[in-house]
């Protein structure tokens, strides 16, 4: 059995669908077609998410089978299957899924975010180790101003930062952020066009 679909088919699909959606975004009259394609894409993305779930399951099932840190992987598998089954059964607003979300998932996730406070402090404290040039000084200097402008420090108000220097730094960074965003937009535009031109074929074409 030959299972490969020839690349031109995939490339043609990507280009045709991509241009259709793009044209429908730029000129009016094709909204129905676009919505149709977007509905398919939303459905396919959801199915892809399930394939992701299957991949996660497979990777960790294999680890359990191969006795490669099986405790961790079996915890993951049990947690995944129980949450999946219960949420499907009761609905995402059901009591048990809500309990799991509020008392298990949320504390860990906010906890990980809280750990970031330490990780980022360490990163900033070690910043000069890797970068002791002018830009390093500018970064740390601006970081100090931005931090000191945020709130009183050890209970002491520092109006020079909150009312004078802080707003200046903020205003400059808003303008520079605009430049950064336009640049990101240009990069996005070019990257998207490469897919539509068939020059980039990440779908295996």
């Amino acid at each position, binding site marked *: 059995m030959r299972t490969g679909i020839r690349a031109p088919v995939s490339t043609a699909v990507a280009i045709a669908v991509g241009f259709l959606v793009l044209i429908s975004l730029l000129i009016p009259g094709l909204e129905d077609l676009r919505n149709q394609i*977007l509905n398919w894409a939303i459905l396919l*993305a959801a199915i892809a*998410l399930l394939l992701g779930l299957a991949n996660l399951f497979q990777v960790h099932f294999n680890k359990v089978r191969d006795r490669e840190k099986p405790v961790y992987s079996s915890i993951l598998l049990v947690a995944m299957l129980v949450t999946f089954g219960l949420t499907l059964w009761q609905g995402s607003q059901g009591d048990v899924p809500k309990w799991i979300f509020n008392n298990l998932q949320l504390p860990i996730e906010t906890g990980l975010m809280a750990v970031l406070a330490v*990780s980022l402090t360490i990163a900033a404290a070690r910043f000069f180790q890797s970068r002791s040039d002018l830009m390093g000084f500018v970064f740390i200097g601006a970081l100090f101003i931005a931090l000191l402008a945020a709130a009183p420090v050890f209970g002491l108000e520092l109006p020079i930062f909150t009312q004078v220097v802080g707003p200046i730094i903020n205003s400059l960074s808003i303008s520079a952020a605009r430049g950064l965003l336009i640049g990101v937009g240009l990069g996005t535009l070019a*990257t998207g066009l*490469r897919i539509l*031109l068939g020059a980039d074929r990440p779908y295996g074409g």
Partner: protein
Amino acid sequence: MSISPEVLVALALFFILLFSVWGRNNPRRVFRSIKAFKELQRNIELSVEDGSRLQIGLGSGGLLGPQSAAAFAGLTLLRQVADIASDSDQPPIATTGDGALMLLAQDTLRSTYRRLGIREQFNSKLGRVTGLTPFSHAAGALPLILDRSVLGSALIGSYGNEVGLIAGASQRANGFTTGGSDRLSTQAILFAAADEPLIGEEIYATGAYTNAGAAHQASLRSQDLLRWILIALLIITALAPLFEGSQIVQ
């Protein structure tokens, strides 16, 4: 003065096609140096030499929005790294937090392996989701880094704050991290916490800086040209109210 969306898209398209033909063989026309790419190349070499693994992170932004472009840049890098390192003891591993991106990563690896004639060595574990939400995706990548299963991580995709966890773990384990994102706050985290950050639009230049093909280089040149067109437009738009104002005054 303004520019309409369709004109901007048409211009970009035209410039890419133009630069694909014009001036592409001029050896003096090159790109500025970006340290992150040099370091990335060094780490790829290192990973091939000592048989260690590289992680290419694609983020968890998904495909249905503007954030998809960042992941496409990551997929280009994946293809290029796989081309070089698939032959090594430990081929690169692609991690993501989105199902559709996982499929594209697997497709990319599968086609690369097929092209290299080693399709039997492809394994779907090489393109995987480590978690299905942004933070759980990062959490899933932590053991890879903390256990030093990967030598380094190239994070090119749409990441949020969770990138700080990955970069932090990398610092703890003395691993190498480079990367960028379409989100500015993520770029800020990487600027401080990654070994070599890619800032602004530099992630979209990944293909051109890794010799991914003529189109990548042409699109980078068209980006440059559009940049100056927009700069001109920006200056005119910003100054116009003053001149209009002074005309009114006169």
